Protein backbone atom coordinates (compact mmCIF):
# COMPACT_ATOMS: atom_id res chain seq x y z
CA UNK A 1 0.00 0.00 0.00
CA UNK A 2 1.26 3.44 -0.89
CA UNK A 3 -0.59 6.74 -0.79
CA UNK A 4 0.52 10.27 -1.66
CA UNK A 5 -0.91 12.20 1.30
CA UNK A 6 0.54 15.63 0.60
CA UNK A 7 2.25 17.44 -2.19
CA UNK A 8 3.83 20.29 -0.27
CA UNK A 9 5.82 23.08 -1.79
CA UNK A 10 9.03 21.37 -0.91
CA UNK A 11 8.44 17.67 -0.71
CA UNK A 12 6.08 14.84 -1.48
CA UNK A 13 4.81 12.88 1.51
CA UNK A 14 3.95 9.26 0.86
CA UNK A 15 2.27 7.05 3.47
CA UNK A 16 3.34 3.45 3.10
CA UNK A 17 4.04 0.17 4.77
CA UNK A 18 7.74 -0.16 5.59
CA UNK A 19 8.88 -3.39 7.21
CA UNK A 20 5.51 -3.77 8.91
CA UNK A 21 5.29 -0.13 10.08
CA UNK A 22 3.14 2.62 8.62
CA UNK A 23 5.60 5.37 7.80
CA UNK A 24 5.89 8.67 5.98
CA UNK A 25 8.44 8.80 3.20
CA UNK A 26 9.35 12.43 2.66
CA UNK A 27 11.11 13.08 -0.64
CA UNK A 28 12.45 16.45 -1.68
CA UNK A 29 12.04 16.12 -5.42
CA UNK A 30 14.19 18.15 -7.82
CA UNK A 31 12.49 21.37 -8.90
CA UNK A 32 12.78 21.91 -12.60
CA UNK A 33 12.54 25.67 -12.19
CA UNK A 34 15.73 25.81 -10.11
CA UNK A 35 19.28 25.67 -11.41
CA UNK A 36 20.42 22.05 -10.88
CA UNK A 37 23.40 22.99 -8.68
CA UNK A 38 21.29 25.24 -6.45
CA UNK A 39 18.54 22.64 -6.39
CA UNK A 40 20.92 19.88 -5.29
CA UNK A 41 22.48 22.09 -2.60
CA UNK A 42 19.10 23.06 -1.14
CA UNK A 43 17.63 19.56 -1.14
CA UNK A 44 20.68 18.00 0.42
CA UNK A 45 21.28 20.56 3.15
CA UNK A 46 17.62 20.76 4.10
CA UNK A 47 17.32 16.99 4.42
CA UNK A 48 20.44 16.96 6.54
CA UNK A 49 19.25 19.82 8.79
CA UNK A 50 15.82 18.35 9.15
CA UNK A 51 17.01 14.98 10.42
CA UNK A 52 19.61 16.29 12.83
CA UNK A 53 17.41 19.04 14.24
CA UNK A 54 14.40 16.74 14.68
CA UNK A 55 16.56 14.72 17.09
CA UNK A 56 17.84 17.84 18.85
CA UNK A 57 14.25 19.05 19.25
CA UNK A 58 13.32 15.82 21.02
CA UNK A 59 16.09 16.44 23.55
CA UNK A 60 14.59 19.86 24.24
CA UNK A 61 11.27 18.21 25.11
CA UNK A 62 9.34 19.10 21.98
CA UNK A 63 7.50 16.18 20.33
CA UNK A 64 8.72 15.48 16.78
CA UNK A 65 8.31 12.44 14.52
CA UNK A 66 10.59 9.44 15.03
CA UNK A 67 13.17 8.99 12.30
CA UNK A 68 13.72 5.58 10.75
CA UNK A 69 16.07 6.28 7.86
CA UNK A 70 17.78 9.25 6.24
CA UNK A 71 19.29 9.45 2.77
CA UNK A 72 20.84 12.90 2.29
CA UNK A 73 22.11 12.24 -1.22
CA UNK A 74 18.63 11.50 -2.55
CA UNK A 75 16.91 13.84 -0.09
CA UNK A 76 14.69 11.15 1.39
CA UNK A 77 13.63 10.75 5.03
CA UNK A 78 11.59 7.81 6.33
CA UNK A 79 9.77 8.83 9.52
CA UNK A 80 6.92 8.10 11.88
CA UNK A 81 3.41 8.74 10.60
CA UNK A 82 1.94 11.18 13.12
CA UNK A 83 -1.82 10.73 13.13
CA UNK A 84 -3.75 13.88 13.90
CA UNK A 85 -4.88 17.22 12.53
CA UNK A 86 -2.83 20.20 11.41
CA UNK A 87 -3.34 23.16 13.74
CA UNK A 88 -4.19 25.22 10.67
CA UNK A 89 -7.28 23.10 10.01
CA UNK A 90 -8.17 22.80 13.69
CA UNK A 91 -8.29 26.47 14.77
CA UNK A 92 -11.78 27.15 13.47
CA UNK A 93 -13.26 24.00 15.04
CA UNK A 94 -12.33 24.73 18.66
CA UNK A 95 -13.98 26.58 21.53
CA UNK A 96 -12.30 29.78 22.72
CA UNK A 97 -10.90 27.96 25.73
CA UNK A 98 -9.51 25.04 23.72
CA UNK A 99 -7.97 27.41 21.21
CA UNK A 100 -6.26 29.41 23.94
CA UNK A 101 -4.87 26.41 25.76
CA UNK A 102 -3.64 24.92 22.49
CA UNK A 103 -1.73 28.08 21.63
CA UNK A 104 -0.26 28.32 25.14
CA UNK A 105 1.10 24.82 24.54
CA UNK A 106 2.42 25.76 21.10
CA UNK A 107 4.08 28.82 22.64
CA UNK A 108 5.70 26.66 25.33
CA UNK A 109 7.16 24.34 22.71
CA UNK A 110 8.40 27.27 20.64
CA UNK A 111 10.15 28.53 23.80
CA UNK A 112 11.69 25.11 24.41
CA UNK A 113 13.04 25.03 20.87
CA UNK A 114 14.55 28.51 21.12
CA UNK A 115 16.04 27.77 24.54
CA UNK A 116 17.77 24.74 23.05
CA UNK A 117 19.20 26.88 20.25
CA UNK A 118 16.80 25.64 17.59
CA UNK A 119 15.28 28.04 15.08
CA UNK A 120 12.42 26.28 13.29
CA UNK A 121 12.55 28.50 10.20
CA UNK A 122 8.97 27.80 9.10
CA UNK A 123 7.03 28.21 12.31
CA UNK A 124 3.48 28.12 10.99
CA UNK A 125 0.25 26.36 11.91
CA UNK A 126 0.65 24.08 8.87
CA UNK A 127 3.75 22.60 10.49
CA UNK A 128 2.27 21.65 13.84
CA UNK A 129 0.02 18.62 14.35
CA UNK A 130 -2.34 17.94 17.24
CA UNK A 131 -2.06 14.22 17.88
CA UNK A 132 -4.00 13.09 20.94
CA UNK A 133 -2.60 15.11 23.84
CA UNK A 134 0.63 15.80 22.04
CA UNK A 135 1.40 18.82 19.91
CA UNK A 136 3.95 17.58 17.39
CA UNK A 137 6.25 19.90 15.45
CA UNK A 138 7.13 18.82 11.92
CA UNK A 139 8.95 20.11 8.83
CA UNK A 140 12.34 21.28 10.07
CA UNK A 141 13.72 21.73 6.53
CA UNK A 142 14.39 25.45 7.02
CA UNK A 143 15.63 25.08 10.58
CA UNK A 144 19.04 25.95 11.95
CA UNK A 145 20.98 26.01 15.19
CA UNK A 146 21.36 29.49 16.64
CA UNK A 147 21.02 31.37 19.91
CA UNK A 148 20.77 34.77 18.20
CA UNK A 149 17.93 37.05 19.25
CA UNK A 150 17.54 38.17 15.65
CA UNK A 151 16.78 34.67 14.41
CA UNK A 152 14.36 34.07 17.27
CA UNK A 153 12.59 37.31 16.36
CA UNK A 154 12.27 36.27 12.70
CA UNK A 155 10.92 32.86 13.76
CA UNK A 156 8.27 34.45 16.01
CA UNK A 157 7.37 36.94 13.28
CA UNK A 158 6.55 33.98 11.00
CA UNK A 159 4.00 32.70 13.50
CA UNK A 160 2.47 36.14 13.89
CA UNK A 161 2.35 36.59 10.09
CA UNK A 162 0.49 33.29 9.81
CA UNK A 163 -2.01 34.36 12.45
CA UNK A 164 -2.56 37.65 10.58
CA UNK A 165 -2.93 36.14 7.10
CA UNK A 166 -4.79 32.92 7.89
CA UNK A 167 -6.28 33.03 11.40
CA UNK A 168 -7.20 36.73 11.24
CA UNK A 169 -10.43 36.23 13.18
CA UNK A 170 -8.48 35.20 16.31
CA UNK A 171 -5.13 36.88 15.70
CA UNK A 172 -4.89 38.89 18.96
CA UNK A 173 -6.24 36.14 21.18
CA UNK A 174 -3.95 33.51 19.70
CA UNK A 175 -0.87 35.72 19.78
CA UNK A 176 -1.52 36.48 23.47
CA UNK A 177 -1.86 32.78 24.29
CA UNK A 178 1.23 31.93 22.26
CA UNK A 179 3.27 34.61 24.07
CA UNK A 180 2.07 33.37 27.47
CA UNK A 181 3.38 29.88 26.73
CA UNK A 182 6.57 31.23 25.18
CA UNK A 183 7.32 33.31 28.30
CA UNK A 184 6.83 30.25 30.52
CA UNK A 185 9.60 28.25 28.90
CA UNK A 186 11.89 31.06 27.73
CA UNK A 187 11.91 32.87 31.08
CA UNK A 188 14.09 35.97 31.13
CA UNK A 189 15.07 35.68 27.47
CA UNK A 190 11.46 35.88 26.28
CA UNK A 191 11.01 39.67 26.25
CA UNK A 192 14.06 40.35 24.13
CA UNK A 193 12.90 37.87 21.48
CA UNK A 194 9.31 39.16 21.52
CA UNK A 195 10.52 42.76 21.18
CA UNK A 196 12.61 41.66 18.23
CA UNK A 197 9.54 40.05 16.67
CA UNK A 198 7.87 43.49 16.57
CA UNK A 199 11.03 45.09 15.26
CA UNK A 200 11.35 42.54 12.44
CA UNK A 201 7.73 43.16 11.42
CA UNK A 202 8.33 46.91 11.25
CA UNK A 203 11.40 46.43 9.08
CA UNK A 204 9.20 45.29 6.19
CA UNK A 205 8.17 47.50 3.33
CA UNK A 206 5.29 49.87 3.95
CA UNK A 207 4.37 49.15 7.55
CA UNK A 208 2.80 51.67 9.92
CA UNK A 209 5.78 52.47 12.13
CA UNK A 210 3.96 53.96 15.11
Amino acid at each position, binding site marked *: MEELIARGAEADLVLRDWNGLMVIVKTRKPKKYRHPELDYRLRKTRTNHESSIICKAKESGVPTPLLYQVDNENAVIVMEYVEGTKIRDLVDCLTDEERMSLFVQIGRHAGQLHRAGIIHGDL*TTSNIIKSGDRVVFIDFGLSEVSYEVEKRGVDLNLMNRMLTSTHYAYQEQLLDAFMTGYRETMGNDAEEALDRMDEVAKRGRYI*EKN
Partner: protein
Amino acid sequence: MIALGVESTADNLGIGIVTSDKQVLANILDIHVPQEGGIHPREAARHHSENMGTAIKKALDTAGVTGKDIDIIAFAQGPGLGPCLRTGATSARALAAYLGKPLVGVNHCVAHVEVGRMATGAEDPLTLYVSGGNTMVSGYESGRYRIFGETLDIAIGNCLDTFARAAGLEYPGGPDIERKAKLGEKLIPLPYTVKGMDLSYSGLLTAITGELETGKHSVEDLCFSLQETAYAMLGEITERALAHTGKPELLLTGGVAANKRLAGIVNDIAEEHGAEPFIVPIRLAADNGAMIAWTGIEAYNAGVRTPVETSHVNPNWRMDQVEVPWRS
Protein backbone atom coordinates in the same frame (compact mmCIF):
# COMPACT_ATOMS: atom_id res chain seq x y z
CA MET B 1 -18.90 54.91 -16.78
CA ILE B 2 -15.49 56.45 -17.50
CA ALA B 3 -12.75 56.87 -14.88
CA LEU B 4 -9.54 58.83 -14.96
CA GLY B 5 -6.78 57.38 -12.77
CA VAL B 6 -3.69 59.14 -11.43
CA GLU B 7 -0.68 56.99 -10.51
CA SER B 8 2.31 58.70 -8.88
CA THR B 9 3.58 56.42 -6.12
CA ALA B 10 7.22 56.33 -7.27
CA ASP B 11 9.11 57.16 -10.46
CA ASN B 12 6.25 56.56 -12.91
CA LEU B 13 3.71 59.27 -13.54
CA GLY B 14 0.72 57.54 -15.11
CA ILE B 15 -2.64 58.83 -16.28
CA GLY B 16 -5.15 56.23 -17.39
CA ILE B 17 -8.67 56.48 -18.75
CA VAL B 18 -10.76 53.32 -18.50
CA THR B 19 -14.43 52.47 -19.02
CA SER B 20 -16.61 50.24 -16.85
CA ASP B 21 -16.68 47.69 -19.70
CA LYS B 22 -12.91 47.25 -19.36
CA GLN B 23 -11.80 49.39 -22.30
CA VAL B 24 -8.47 51.10 -21.69
CA LEU B 25 -8.97 54.32 -23.69
CA ALA B 26 -5.64 55.84 -22.65
CA ASN B 27 -2.69 54.79 -20.53
CA ILE B 28 -0.10 57.57 -20.60
CA LEU B 29 3.24 57.01 -18.88
CA ASP B 30 5.91 59.57 -18.14
CA ILE B 31 8.86 58.02 -16.31
CA HIS B 32 11.29 60.03 -14.21
CA VAL B 33 14.84 58.86 -14.90
CA PRO B 34 17.29 60.02 -12.22
CA GLN B 35 20.49 61.63 -13.53
CA GLU B 36 22.46 59.58 -11.07
CA GLY B 37 21.74 57.08 -8.28
CA GLY B 38 18.28 55.79 -7.44
CA ILE B 39 14.96 57.60 -7.16
CA HIS B 40 15.13 60.79 -5.11
CA PRO B 41 11.57 61.34 -3.84
CA ARG B 42 11.75 65.14 -4.14
CA GLU B 43 13.18 65.07 -7.65
CA ALA B 44 10.61 62.50 -8.77
CA ALA B 45 7.78 64.57 -7.26
CA ARG B 46 9.06 67.68 -9.07
CA HIS B 47 9.08 65.72 -12.34
CA HIS B 48 5.49 64.60 -11.73
CA SER B 49 4.19 68.07 -10.95
CA GLU B 50 5.95 69.58 -13.97
CA ASN B 51 4.52 66.97 -16.32
CA MET B 52 1.11 66.38 -14.79
CA GLY B 53 -0.80 68.86 -16.97
CA THR B 54 0.72 67.55 -20.19
CA ALA B 55 0.07 63.93 -19.22
CA ILE B 56 -3.58 64.59 -18.37
CA LYS B 57 -4.13 66.47 -21.61
CA LYS B 58 -2.42 63.73 -23.60
CA ALA B 59 -4.60 61.08 -21.93
CA LEU B 60 -7.82 62.98 -22.72
CA ASP B 61 -6.71 63.50 -26.34
CA THR B 62 -5.71 59.85 -26.78
CA ALA B 63 -9.02 58.67 -25.32
CA GLY B 64 -10.92 61.13 -27.46
CA VAL B 65 -12.90 62.46 -24.49
CA THR B 66 -13.15 65.75 -22.63
CA GLY B 67 -13.25 66.43 -18.88
CA LYS B 68 -17.04 66.45 -19.02
CA ASP B 69 -17.11 62.80 -20.12
CA ILE B 70 -15.19 61.65 -17.05
CA ASP B 71 -17.42 60.25 -14.27
CA ILE B 72 -14.94 59.67 -11.45
CA ILE B 73 -11.38 60.66 -10.57
CA ALA B 74 -9.32 57.88 -8.97
CA PHE B 75 -5.85 58.33 -7.50
CA ALA B 76 -3.22 56.16 -5.83
CA GLN B 77 -3.48 57.07 -2.14
CA GLY B 78 -0.61 54.78 -1.05
CA PRO B 79 1.68 53.02 -0.45
CA GLY B 80 4.64 54.83 -1.95
CA LEU B 81 6.95 57.82 -1.67
CA GLY B 82 5.28 60.66 0.24
CA PRO B 83 6.21 63.61 -2.00
CA CYS B 84 5.22 61.70 -5.16
CA LEU B 85 1.93 60.54 -3.68
CA ARG B 86 1.08 64.08 -2.57
CA THR B 87 1.66 65.46 -6.07
CA GLY B 88 -0.78 62.96 -7.56
CA ALA B 89 -3.35 63.43 -4.78
CA THR B 90 -3.26 67.23 -5.10
CA SER B 91 -3.85 67.03 -8.85
CA ALA B 92 -6.66 64.50 -8.41
CA ARG B 93 -8.41 66.66 -5.79
CA ALA B 94 -8.13 69.74 -8.01
CA LEU B 95 -9.44 67.85 -11.02
CA ALA B 96 -12.37 66.39 -9.08
CA ALA B 97 -13.30 69.79 -7.67
CA TYR B 98 -12.98 71.51 -11.04
CA LEU B 99 -15.06 68.91 -12.89
CA GLY B 100 -17.45 68.42 -9.96
CA LYS B 101 -16.85 64.63 -10.01
CA PRO B 102 -16.40 62.19 -7.10
CA LEU B 103 -12.94 61.28 -5.87
CA VAL B 104 -11.90 57.66 -5.15
CA GLY B 105 -8.64 56.82 -3.33
CA VAL B 106 -7.13 53.52 -4.42
CA ASN B 107 -4.50 51.27 -2.84
CA HIS B 108 -1.66 50.88 -5.35
CA CYS B 109 -1.00 47.18 -4.55
CA VAL B 110 -4.69 46.27 -4.75
CA ALA B 111 -4.82 48.06 -8.12
CA HIS B 112 -2.01 45.86 -9.47
CA VAL B 113 -4.03 42.75 -8.66
CA GLU B 114 -7.33 44.19 -9.91
CA VAL B 115 -6.02 45.29 -13.31
CA GLY B 116 -4.23 41.94 -13.57
CA ARG B 117 -7.56 40.17 -13.11
CA MET B 118 -9.18 42.52 -15.60
CA ALA B 119 -6.48 42.03 -18.24
CA THR B 120 -6.07 38.27 -17.97
CA GLY B 121 -9.51 37.05 -16.92
CA ALA B 122 -8.15 35.43 -13.75
CA GLU B 123 -10.90 35.27 -11.13
CA ASP B 124 -9.40 34.31 -7.79
CA PRO B 125 -5.63 34.12 -8.21
CA LEU B 126 -2.74 33.89 -5.84
CA THR B 127 -0.70 36.90 -6.95
CA LEU B 128 3.07 37.32 -7.05
CA TYR B 129 3.61 41.06 -7.27
CA VAL B 130 7.20 42.05 -7.94
CA SER B 131 8.50 45.55 -8.61
CA GLY B 132 11.04 48.16 -7.57
CA GLY B 133 9.28 48.81 -4.28
CA ASN B 134 7.22 45.68 -3.62
CA THR B 135 7.70 41.94 -3.39
CA MET B 136 4.69 40.07 -2.06
CA VAL B 137 2.48 37.04 -2.46
CA SER B 138 -1.17 37.75 -1.74
CA GLY B 139 -4.61 36.29 -2.19
CA TYR B 140 -8.20 37.20 -1.44
CA GLU B 141 -9.77 35.77 1.75
CA SER B 142 -12.97 37.06 3.41
CA GLY B 143 -13.14 40.69 2.42
CA ARG B 144 -9.47 41.53 2.03
CA TYR B 145 -6.29 40.70 0.17
CA ARG B 146 -4.15 38.80 2.68
CA ILE B 147 -0.38 38.91 2.41
CA PHE B 148 0.99 35.37 2.72
CA GLY B 149 4.60 36.15 1.98
CA GLU B 150 6.72 39.23 1.38
CA THR B 151 10.22 40.58 1.57
CA LEU B 152 11.55 41.22 5.06
CA ASP B 153 13.74 44.04 3.79
CA ILE B 154 14.29 45.31 0.22
CA ALA B 155 12.20 44.59 -2.88
CA ILE B 156 13.48 42.44 -5.77
CA GLY B 157 13.55 45.40 -8.17
CA ASN B 158 15.51 47.44 -5.67
CA CYS B 159 18.04 44.60 -5.36
CA LEU B 160 18.39 44.32 -9.16
CA ASP B 161 18.68 48.11 -9.69
CA THR B 162 21.28 48.56 -6.97
CA PHE B 163 23.43 45.77 -8.37
CA ALA B 164 23.00 47.11 -11.92
CA ARG B 165 24.27 50.52 -10.81
CA ALA B 166 27.29 48.99 -9.09
CA ALA B 167 28.04 46.96 -12.24
CA GLY B 168 27.61 49.95 -14.56
CA LEU B 169 24.54 48.49 -16.28
CA GLU B 170 21.55 50.37 -17.62
CA TYR B 171 18.74 51.76 -15.45
CA PRO B 172 16.33 50.21 -14.59
CA GLY B 173 18.47 47.14 -14.00
CA GLY B 174 16.07 44.27 -14.77
CA PRO B 175 16.17 44.17 -18.60
CA ASP B 176 19.95 44.59 -18.89
CA ILE B 177 20.58 41.97 -16.20
CA GLU B 178 18.26 39.59 -18.06
CA ARG B 179 20.14 40.10 -21.35
CA LYS B 180 23.54 39.54 -19.72
CA ALA B 181 22.28 36.57 -17.70
CA LYS B 182 21.46 34.73 -20.94
CA LEU B 183 25.19 34.65 -21.69
CA GLY B 184 26.20 33.52 -18.18
CA GLU B 185 27.11 29.91 -17.42
CA LYS B 186 28.69 29.63 -14.01
CA LEU B 187 26.53 29.63 -10.87
CA ILE B 188 28.35 31.54 -8.14
CA PRO B 189 27.21 30.34 -4.67
CA LEU B 190 25.16 33.14 -3.06
CA PRO B 191 23.02 33.44 0.08
CA TYR B 192 19.56 31.97 -0.44
CA THR B 193 17.29 33.38 2.27
CA VAL B 194 13.76 32.03 2.61
CA LYS B 195 12.00 32.28 5.99
CA GLY B 196 8.77 30.34 5.75
CA MET B 197 6.82 32.23 3.09
CA ASP B 198 8.93 35.39 3.50
CA LEU B 199 12.28 36.13 1.95
CA SER B 200 15.14 38.57 2.33
CA TYR B 201 17.30 40.14 -0.39
CA SER B 202 19.69 42.35 1.59
CA GLY B 203 22.21 39.55 2.21
CA LEU B 204 22.09 38.49 -1.44
CA LEU B 205 22.70 42.08 -2.58
CA THR B 206 25.68 42.48 -0.24
CA ALA B 207 27.15 39.16 -1.41
CA ILE B 208 26.72 39.75 -5.16
CA THR B 209 28.20 43.25 -4.83
CA GLY B 210 31.15 41.69 -2.98
CA GLU B 211 31.62 39.13 -5.78
CA LEU B 212 31.55 41.96 -8.33
CA GLU B 213 34.28 43.81 -6.44
CA THR B 214 36.61 40.78 -6.43
CA GLY B 215 36.88 41.19 -10.22
CA LYS B 216 37.06 37.40 -10.54
CA HIS B 217 33.77 36.89 -12.37
CA SER B 218 32.39 38.04 -15.69
CA VAL B 219 29.41 40.38 -15.44
CA GLU B 220 27.41 37.74 -17.37
CA ASP B 221 28.06 35.10 -14.71
CA LEU B 222 27.21 37.58 -11.96
CA CYS B 223 23.89 38.47 -13.64
CA PHE B 224 23.14 34.80 -14.25
CA SER B 225 23.85 33.86 -10.63
CA LEU B 226 21.89 36.81 -9.24
CA GLN B 227 18.85 35.98 -11.38
CA GLU B 228 18.94 32.25 -10.69
CA THR B 229 19.20 32.76 -6.94
CA ALA B 230 16.79 35.69 -6.56
CA TYR B 231 14.09 34.16 -8.76
CA ALA B 232 14.40 30.68 -7.23
CA MET B 233 13.63 32.33 -3.86
CA LEU B 234 10.54 33.99 -5.38
CA GLY B 235 9.57 30.64 -6.88
CA GLU B 236 9.84 28.91 -3.53
CA ILE B 237 7.70 31.36 -1.53
CA THR B 238 5.14 31.40 -4.34
CA GLU B 239 5.01 27.62 -4.36
CA ARG B 240 4.66 27.54 -0.58
CA ALA B 241 1.79 30.04 -0.68
CA LEU B 242 0.12 28.14 -3.51
CA ALA B 243 0.30 24.88 -1.56
CA HIS B 244 -0.91 26.69 1.55
CA THR B 245 -3.92 28.42 -0.03
CA GLY B 246 -4.80 25.91 -2.74
CA LYS B 247 -5.74 28.78 -5.09
CA PRO B 248 -6.65 27.58 -8.62
CA GLU B 249 -4.86 30.44 -10.41
CA LEU B 250 -1.44 32.08 -10.24
CA LEU B 251 -0.98 35.68 -11.40
CA LEU B 252 2.38 37.37 -12.01
CA THR B 253 2.41 41.17 -12.04
CA GLY B 254 4.53 44.26 -11.31
CA GLY B 255 7.40 45.65 -13.37
CA VAL B 256 9.59 42.59 -12.81
CA ALA B 257 6.86 40.44 -14.44
CA ALA B 258 8.48 41.47 -17.73
CA ASN B 259 11.33 39.05 -16.96
CA LYS B 260 11.04 35.91 -19.09
CA ARG B 261 12.99 33.71 -16.70
CA LEU B 262 10.66 34.60 -13.84
CA ALA B 263 7.60 34.07 -16.04
CA GLY B 264 8.97 30.61 -16.89
CA ILE B 265 9.34 29.78 -13.20
CA VAL B 266 5.77 30.89 -12.51
CA ASN B 267 4.48 28.73 -15.38
CA ASP B 268 6.42 25.69 -14.07
CA ILE B 269 5.05 26.11 -10.55
CA ALA B 270 1.49 26.56 -11.75
CA GLU B 271 1.75 23.41 -13.85
CA GLU B 272 3.22 21.42 -10.97
CA HIS B 273 0.30 22.37 -8.69
CA GLY B 274 -2.48 22.20 -11.26
CA ALA B 275 -3.10 25.95 -11.21
CA GLU B 276 -3.63 28.15 -14.23
CA PRO B 277 -0.85 30.72 -14.80
CA PHE B 278 -1.49 34.31 -15.89
CA ILE B 279 1.23 36.80 -16.78
CA VAL B 280 0.04 40.41 -16.91
CA PRO B 281 1.21 42.26 -20.06
CA ILE B 282 3.90 44.79 -19.17
CA ARG B 283 1.91 47.95 -20.01
CA LEU B 284 -0.56 47.00 -17.30
CA ALA B 285 1.89 45.13 -15.03
CA ALA B 286 4.29 48.03 -14.44
CA ASP B 287 2.98 51.04 -12.50
CA ASN B 288 0.35 52.78 -14.63
CA GLY B 289 -2.72 55.00 -14.43
CA ALA B 290 -5.15 52.54 -16.04
CA MET B 291 -4.90 50.20 -13.05
CA ILE B 292 -5.86 53.05 -10.72
CA ALA B 293 -8.78 54.08 -12.97
CA TRP B 294 -10.08 50.49 -13.23
CA THR B 295 -9.85 49.84 -9.49
CA GLY B 296 -11.52 53.20 -8.93
CA ILE B 297 -14.51 52.00 -10.99
CA GLU B 298 -14.77 48.74 -9.04
CA ALA B 299 -14.52 50.57 -5.71
CA TYR B 300 -16.97 53.30 -6.74
CA ASN B 301 -19.55 50.74 -7.86
CA ALA B 302 -19.22 49.03 -4.48
CA GLY B 303 -19.95 52.32 -2.72
CA VAL B 304 -16.43 53.54 -1.94
CA ARG B 305 -16.05 57.35 -1.90
CA THR B 306 -13.10 59.41 -0.74
CA PRO B 307 -14.22 62.87 0.36
CA VAL B 308 -11.46 65.48 0.34
CA GLU B 309 -11.32 65.46 4.18
CA THR B 310 -10.13 61.82 4.18
CA SER B 311 -8.09 61.99 1.00
CA HIS B 312 -4.69 62.46 2.68
CA VAL B 313 -2.08 60.09 1.29
CA ASN B 314 -0.76 57.11 3.27
CA PRO B 315 2.81 56.15 2.33
CA ASN B 316 2.61 52.96 4.47
CA TRP B 317 -0.87 51.77 3.49
CA ARG B 318 -0.63 48.00 3.52
CA MET B 319 -2.71 46.00 1.10
CA ASP B 320 -4.22 43.90 3.89
CA GLN B 321 -5.67 47.01 5.57
CA VAL B 322 -8.01 47.67 2.65
CA GLU B 323 -11.61 46.43 2.59
CA VAL B 324 -12.41 45.00 -0.85
CA PRO B 325 -16.23 45.13 -0.95
CA TRP B 326 -16.46 44.51 -4.69
CA ARG B 327 -15.22 40.97 -4.29
CA SER B 328 -17.43 39.85 -1.42
